């Protein structure tokens, strides 16, 4: 079955357009830019709407998870648009290699392509040595830059979300976001991207300069499955909806998820003796990334305007109070840990976004709500299922219910 998988000719990478799903709007913008610098022409897809979901339904087992349907739908919708030279187009997808279905997206994408676009190669972006023949060649310098994509994406996302609800003039925040993004791209060009403290300050100050009204806004945290947590296609534009309801969306950083994945390999070593030669390397990366997180938090705190990121070690200690860190499939223990961290930092309303029937979420999402509530009795958590047929009305109704009772409690 595997023999006819088309291989991406890495030596001719310049000729190809590589399509990537719109999973992390803030971060993938930088990822695409950085990759372009390495000869990969990445284009982030913004296809939306019912047709995209329908394409997904048509080409993928309907019991597969919703993110897979969205991603596959976006790919096929784009490939069918006629905008791309099909012999010079490839697809990019991320893989974590965990014990959840998500690791199989790549296979599902390939299967979906088999019928109509057999010539299109699918590239994997992963750090678990999967798909050796067809994964992006990750040179140390590229990996380093990708890490900074995460940092800058997180910074801009966090500052934007904390400023947008209060801006005086509609459009200011969007403009600042645009400006910051352009500046960050230039930093990648010049090599100055590694001056994290300075650049972080630049971003925080740019957003802090936006004129604002400080009224009371209900803070609403978003946790959950990684795709529906961040992707506007996946979560029916949840952030926009919350903004329109007069709330401040609090979206935890992507870095948390990256660190979570790294820590899981360390935990595996501790729990089951699963060690390999790369385990010490993971430990080094982990320490390094935590240092970077500390730098960003120092900057955010210094401005006195912005809530910093959750300290990761603190997240882990919160996790220990509600669940075991052995729960490592999907977003695992990170979900209840983030719920607890949000509750602790006065974000008492939380949307737990999950694809309908998401297996790890049975345990770490819905299943852990009670434990979090026991610890933080005031917290309001509403699990929302995302699904090709779930209507926006239903999803929004449930969020409104949460908000209404939040206002009641005040």
């Amino acid at each position, binding site marked *: 079955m595997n023999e006819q998988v088309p291989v991406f000719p890495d030596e001719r990478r310049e000729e190809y357009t590589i399509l990537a799903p719109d999973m992390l709007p803030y971060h993938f913008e930088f990822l695409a830019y950085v990759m372009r610098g390495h000869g990969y022409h990445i284009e982030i897809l913004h296809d939306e709407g019912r047709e995209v979901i329908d394409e997904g339904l048509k080409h993928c087992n*309907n*019991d597969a998870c919703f993110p897979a349907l969205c991603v596959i739908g976006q790919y096929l919708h784009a490939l069918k648009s006629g905008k791309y030279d099909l012999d010079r187009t490839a697809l990019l997808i991320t893989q974590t290699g965990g014990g959840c279905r998500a690791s199989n997206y790549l296979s599902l994408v390939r299967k979906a392509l088999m019928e109509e676009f057999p010539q299109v190669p699918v590239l994997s972006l992963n750090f678990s040595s999967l798909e050796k023949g067809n994964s992006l060649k990750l040179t140390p310098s590229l990996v380093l830059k990708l890490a900074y994509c995460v940092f800058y994406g997180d910074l801009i996302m966090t500052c934007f979300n904390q400023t947008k609800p209060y801006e005086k003039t509609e459009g200011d925040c969007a403009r600042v976001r645009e400006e910051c993004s352009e500046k960050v791209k230039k930093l990648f060009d010049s090599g100055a991207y590694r001056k994290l403290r300075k650049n972080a300050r630049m971003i925080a100050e740019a957003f802090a300069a936006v004129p604002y009204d400080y009224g009371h806004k209900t803070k609403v945290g978003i946790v959950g499955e990684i795709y529906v947590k961040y992707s506007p296609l996946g979560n029916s534009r949840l952030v926009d909806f919350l903004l329109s309801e007069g709330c401040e969306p609090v979206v935890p950083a992507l870095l948390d998820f990256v660190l979570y994945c790294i820590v899981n390999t360390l935990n595996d070593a501790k729990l089951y003796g699963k060690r390999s030669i790369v385990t010490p390397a993971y430990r080094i990366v982990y320490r390094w990334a935590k240092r970077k997180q500390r730098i960003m938090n120092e900057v955010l705190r210094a401005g006195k305007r912005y809530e910093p990121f959750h300290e990761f070690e603190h997240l882990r200690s919160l996790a220990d109070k509600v669940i075991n860190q052995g*729960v490592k499939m999907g977003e695992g223990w990170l979900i209840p840990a983030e719920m607890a961290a949000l509750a602790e930092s006065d974000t008492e309303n939380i949307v737990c976004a999950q694809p309908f029937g998401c297996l790890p979420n049975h*345990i770490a999402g819905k299943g852990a*709500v009670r434990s979090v509530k026991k610890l933080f009795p005031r917290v309001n958590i509403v*699990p929302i299922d995302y699904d090709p*047929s779930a209507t926006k009305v239903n999803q929004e109704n449930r969020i409104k219910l949460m908000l209404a009772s939040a206002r009641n409690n005040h």
Partner: protein
Amino acid sequence: MENLLGIDVGSTTVKVCVLDCAGNILHTSYTRHFAQPAECLLRALQEVRKFGKTFSVAVTGSAGLGLAQAGLFFVQEVQAAFAAVRRHHPFADAVVELGGEDAKLIFLTGGVEQRMNGSCAGGTGAFIDQMATLLDLSVEEMDKLSLEAKTVYPIASRCGVFAKSDIQPLLNQGASKADIAASIFRAVVDQTVSGLAQGRRIQGQVVFLGGPLYFLKGLRRAFREVLKLDDEHAIFPPTAPTFMAIGAALSAQGQPAMTVDELEERIENLPSGRVAVGKPLFSSQEEYGVFLARHGKSDLQFENIYKYEGDAYLGIDAGSTTTKLLLITPDDKILYSHYQTNKGQPLEIVVNRLREIYSLAGGRVAIRGVCVTGYGEDMFKAALKADFGIVETMAHFKAATHFNPDVDFIIDIGGQDIKCFKVKNGAIDSIMLNEACSSGCGSFIQTFAKAMGMEIEPFARRGLFAEHPVELGSRCTVFMNSSVKQAQKDGASLEDISAGLSASIVKNAIYKVIRARTPDELGQHIVVQGGTFLNDAVLRSFELETGKEVVRPAIAGLMGAFGAALYAKENTSPETLLSTVLTEPELERFGYTSRGVTCKGCTAHCNVNILTFSDGRRFISGNKCERGAGLRKNEKKLDIYSYKYETLLSMPKRKGTRGRVGLPFQLVMYEQLPLWTGFFEECGFEVVLSDRSSRELYFRGQHTVASDTACYPAKLLHGHIESLLDKGVDFIFYPAESYNLDEGSGTNHYNCPVVAYYPELLRANNERLTEENFISPYLDPNNEKYTVRALTRALRKYKLSTGLVRRAWRAGMEKLRSYHEGVVNEGKRILFEAEKAGMPVIVLAGRPYHVDPEINHGIDKLLSSLGLAVLSEDAVFEEGETPEVGVLNQWTYHARLYRAAQFCTRRAGVNLVQLVSFGCGIDAITADEVRSILEGGGKLYTQIKIDEINNLGVVKIRIRSMLAADAERRRKQ
């Protein structure tokens, strides 16, 4: 201060109320809006005028959200209820509110919490309506009947589709409508308890709200019984139907005053929303005319039964909701046809029709052969003494071939089911039936039509020329309801919704059941049939969606009966001059009584229905195995499922001195029970198993189920935990294992997330579990050193030495190994015996826990009774190689499936049937792989989805179809 006006626009009704400024009720009204909420509201507002000129207004309700766009103050429904309860029932502890399509639960004391039904939830007013339609009763009649119930049957509550599949067999077996009605209400209660309460007990003073709970006494009674509430604690306020409107009015306090005229104007000027729309079905009458003419060609000729003299053959299709009869002449002309909904009394219908045929024929017609097919095949064949019975898929195939000998694809959409089959080389190649969660069949449109106050035919016809058919989802009825709700909110017309529903039925069939990627995959010569296709809007939608012209016989609804008649004609031997069917005088005397009993033949305790006919013959149905049918059990037991189950159950043997450890006999224990029994007995503990799985056990743990959409095996685990807690064991042991045993068949060897981490969920959601009495260490069974360390630590209270733990671990692993060896050897024996006896073999492949009879519902026994030998995936996988798969092969249990499938492709006479638990996300991936392995090796793929429902009837059809198709394939080869 103004008077307060509260408006509640729900999915089916409009409620309006007026309060004075002190909150006293001046006026309430409650009207069904039949999909036209705005018009209905405007009418209701007329009565409001006499209570004042201006009002403070607030709206609530699922369709009320749209009114908020008119600049009206919107209150979330649960908040509205909250406000009203606080005022009128300040001492209430909880509120249960059932609406048309929502169910809500508010806990008021001990931490306020508010819950609404999720996106997958039946158990609401619409569900009750649907069930009443199924019983052909009005909701009021159903309610009245339910009060006379004697027995309550288990009916799946989660979703209307499941419930239907539970109810249909009961109806067909002649269970009383009173009992069924009561069972439906009980199902609604179960749904509320499991779906909404999710771990919190509903207790104290409970206020019950919403239309259904106000109008239906039976439902009230069911709630009171299940929640064990007396009159003092169950409060049914007289204002229940309009309660939300009252709450809205209370919340309107302080809103700016508004005149009724102003209000009306705002409602009238509501912007019509943006709805996704599709293309019209027909652009002109001419186009429709051409379409009709083309389909008019596929027809049968008629013969006058009043004059005809000669032979005839009768086909009876006893479907689940309809009964069809067709009498044909030897040259395939129609003498008599009949199509009727069962109304729960299928046998009466057929007997009456047979009487009619005899009287019309006036002795001139000799019925030489009668063949029965469909759902009620066995019962009808017995009752009528028919000559033949064939499985319905074969009947449809026969009929389709008559209209198009080149047919390569048949799709039949009936009232309750969708059947599709591909035809290759003149034989059925693959069969697809709709699974548990894919509704979108005929009765679905019917239910919608009724909800809109129309008959199905005019309703469907109005869609033909709709200009902007709405795009609705293609998944489940409950989802569809909310899609329709949204479309209504956005101002879609009835025509547009009708056309949209027709299209979604078709999409459901193509993308959900057939799972076609491109229309060409279906085939070149498509025959469509089933009553639903008589609906031109559905037929047209199908042609538009597939881009193909298809054949729809004029007798589309009678094809099963036609195929049966053809079968009777072909198989009646020349010597047989008259059928064995009941003669006219016999019919005169025909009658029957039905009686339900619980079979005590084995632990399955089937609800068996016994029909006794007036001539003394008996027919027994509802039994899973042959025992209940009064037959002797298959003597040579070639069923590895019962071997495994019994072997595991008899595992714990020794008494221990250290204490009693409870092992919940579910999920991973079906694989590792030998390991943990061996381990704990060696350590000196007594091993106590939880009770055997059963529905009762499930209900015992239902209140701690956190995620209602998890698989049934996982949800059952909650009951097992309760059972062990009640047995007073010292502690319960259930390990968390990310990794399963590495059997070297994949790139990794994970457990699925649910199996791996369920202990976390149990601990978080069962208040009775503590650090002391629930021990669940994280283990990797492949690593002895770490496992021994983790176990020593987890059991530190018992001060076991590392040496002892290691010895015990090794003893356990040895026991596990020898258990596996036993399974493999038994598998070999079964295969040998079966091949010696020429018996077909089925590898019933699933997960280890599918051995649980409550999970597999006795499918192994059913297979045995059909004369098949039953193997399991773990008995044969070692004989199969790891095939190359297109997916990440990283789960231990799933790797076994692939290898077992590979094994089947190499053995003649061995077929594989895959068992899939509903809600198992990982099987969405394995199913496609197993299918391609089997089909690549020239075998048929059959999948059976299992859940709480216990409906072996459908399973039997699938298995028989598979056997018939397999036999036909082998005959051709």
